[in-house]
């Protein structure tokens, strides 16, 4: 077994206590929520007997330790339980909605990286210049405009006034049929099926929400790129490189940028994780069937299984994400030994 593979395995083993912790905490936290889900789901006109029936069918009449045990036993068998608010098994909801959120978030991140990183580099190369000011304005605007506002404003301009954007009706207009699910990413699935009509339709639906989210995530990435580029450009090795007569682009992109990339990747990881859970408002405005609005709605009605399933899947996602980021570190900077982590 190669040392790298062993290191990855070690990391995965180390993640087990984290996941156990998440399972326990999410269980306890959902139980600590105010409100009685049995009463809520029995409906307004239900009587005592029917509430008791529902409590029993949800397993809420048993003592907490036994509820936990049942939950863990189900979980080990891959059963996340049944969401009451959506009426579906939680695992189905997650597999339907997580790809929707991932597709949106990833597209937005790619878009925002494509703008923010060059912008940050430009700003850092000439601090105080026009491009630096432009970067500052964009960053300030990006942070200070809440996503629901940008979302509604974009819908108003591009759909309502200019009529160039498609109806903000989710992932696909109803004239199209969603592609056969392979990855759950419509763009990938449609491409795999060779169905370019659908691909294009899904792409059009994706533009506005992705831009909305990109505007919001642009700020931390641009700021971080600028700051780390500034410190990289003023370091000794850059002075040495310049003194050695290397040309400017080699100095900037070959040496400074690569060294500045580490904190940017860290920020990217953080931005990715928070925007995945936090794009509830974008999802609402564009009727995007994502994971954020699902979790919030489940939380409001104390839908235990759905909340637990969401927290757990997020935890698993973060564990993977952190692993990927650490792997990227060692790729960017060979001095960082992966197995020492």
């Amino acid at each position: 077994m190669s040392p790298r593979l062993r290191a990855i395995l070690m990391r995965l083993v180390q993640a087990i206590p984290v996941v156990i912790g998440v399972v326990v905490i999410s269980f306890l936290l959902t139980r600590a929520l105010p409100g009685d889900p049995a009463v809520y789901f029995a409906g307004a006109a239900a009587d005592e007997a029917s509430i008791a029936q529902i409590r029993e069918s949800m397993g809420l009449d048993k003592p907490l330790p036994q509820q936990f045990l049942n939950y863990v036993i189900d979980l080990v068998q891959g059963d996340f339980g049944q969401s009451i608010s959506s009426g579906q098994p939680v695992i189905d909801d997650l597999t339907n909605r997580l790809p929707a959120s991932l597709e949106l978030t990833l597209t937005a991140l790619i878009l925002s990286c494509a703008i923010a990183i060059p912008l940050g580099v430009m700003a850092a190369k000439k601090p105080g210049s026009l491009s630096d000011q432009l970067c500052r304005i964009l960053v300030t605007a990006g942070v200070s405009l809440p996503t629901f506002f940008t979302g509604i404003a974009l819908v108003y301009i591009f759909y309502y006034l200019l009529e160039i954007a498609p109806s903000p009706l989710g992932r696909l207009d109803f004239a199209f049929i969603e592609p056969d699910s392979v990855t759950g990413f419509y763009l990938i699935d449609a491409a795999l099926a060779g169905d370019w009509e659908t691909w294009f339709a899904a792409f059009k639906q994706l533009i506005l929400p992705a831009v909305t989210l990109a505007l919001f995530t642009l700020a931390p990435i641009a700021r971080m790129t600028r700051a780390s580029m500034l410190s990289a450009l003023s370091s000794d090795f850059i002075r040495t490189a310049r003194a050695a007569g290397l040309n400017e682009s080699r100095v900037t992109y070959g040496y400074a940028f690569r060294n500045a990339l580490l904190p940017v990747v860290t920020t990217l990881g953080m931005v990715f994780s928070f925007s995945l859970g936090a794009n509830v408002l974008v999802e609402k405005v564009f009727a995007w069937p994502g994971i954020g609005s699902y979790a919030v709605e489940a939380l409001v009605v104390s839908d235990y299984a759905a909340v637990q399933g969401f927290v757990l899947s997020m935890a698993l996602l973060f564990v993977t994400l952190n692993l990927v980021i650490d792997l990227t570190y060692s790729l960017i900077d060979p001095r960082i030994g992966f197995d020492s982590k």
Partner: protein
Amino acid sequence: MTLSTSRRNFLKMSGGVLGASSLPLLKIMPVQAANKDVIVAVTGQTINSLDLHRKGTNRASYQVAVNCYDRLVSFGTKEVPGAGLSYDYSKIEPELAESWTISEDGLKLTFKLKPNAKFWDGTKVTAHDVKWSFDRAVSVGGFPSVQMKAGGLVKPEQFEAIDDETFVITLAQASKLTLPDLAVPVPFVINSKVAKAHATENDPWATEFLHKTPAGSGAFKVAKWMPGEQLVYERNDDWVGGPLPAAKRVIVREVPSPATRRALIEKGNVQLSFNIPNKDAKELADKVDVYSTPIENCMHCVGLNYTFEPFQDPNVRKAVAYAIPYEEIFQTAAYGRGAPLWGGPEKIDSIQWPRKSPYFTDLDKAKELMAQSGFASGFSVPFSISLGLSDWMEPTALLIQENLAKIGITTEIEKIPGANWRTAALVEKKLPLHLENFGGWLNTPDYYFFWAYKKGHLFNSSNYMNPEIETLVDETLHMPMDDPKYAPNIMRMFEIAFEDLPRIPLWQPALNVAANGAKDYEFWFHRQLDVRPLKGT
């Protein structure tokens, strides 16, 4: 093909292009506004089950029971001045039943089923299916059983299938509510052969199967259901329950943001926006067709809890009623949609309900009443509202708070999360001052009083108890409406209710629906979208 591909020419070209799909019926889904066969409706609610009887099914899902299943009988249609069409409580019409007779003593109802009624799978609808479905409704517990009970239907022994086309209901007590209760969404008729084939020992009523796969005889079949996204109805051409719907396909799409729904309906990309906010209803009224129907037998009111000492003083209760700024609330919280329920005549002159209370905004009178009460120096009280209903409760509570302060009652607004509201307000009945909005499906005043004014009953959130009301409601609830004692009993109830004031009526809320390219929307007491009468224009 390029960006300029319109939906229309896309559809012309598509044909076999979309071969990857496994749903041949949905291959081509024509949806432009010019197409009368397809209606797209948007709603902010989410449908979480296709089976109303199942535990945990939410209100939005009731529309599936309405559109995909038949009941024995249905209500007629009437025109509401200025608000389009509405169901007609006073007219019971056949749906699956061809005719029915009621025995002399009112205890035995005999229904003859339509001989040509067929389920979607082509099998005949028999009285045995009706019996199985009714047994299910009274046995599964929860809301369905409670609603069945309102019509005196409590146990399977009451239902009997004489032969394939004859179904008999036996009652313990004759009631005017039984027949209307058969027309509410709950007692729908399921294809029992299909359902029984999927029943298991743990799930004898096949709730897991019918949850995702309806099996009915109704006007529409479910062509596709994507929870949290959309439900696609497709017309059942063999429907015999009523006039064949004009639309071949109706797509109900879930769009959570009201701003987005508004943009969609204004643009005409969707033909119907169901249950829009009052504000949008007001502002859209001159751009598209807006129907604002006051919800029958429903009112928004202020609850004064009798367990809270100051509210036991009649002068305090009346002072509160005179202090409320009704008109301002109606304009701010309801944007003038619905019907005002204040400033009515002093004397009760009809059995109309909800009706205007004799109270109106008069701060001087309110101050005078406070001075005469045992609490002349004022008191303070928490004012509870539900976060789940904050769209109307919050502005209402703020306006009331302002005026109550002027008569010496200081209030602090307490917002209760939606999941706790029912327990706090209706079960424990512990909120001294609060807002409430019960609406009864069966449209008679005595039914409203039964739920909201009788001791210990669920929607009596004020812990109100008056011996005369108790007797009157018991006596009147099942009494036929043409009984000579009916009207005097009802009017006496109104008098007591306005004198004792456990609930101060504010206004009758409206259900707002915007249409742009669809007509003949019909309001129903269940407040869900009945897609059957809709026509594209």
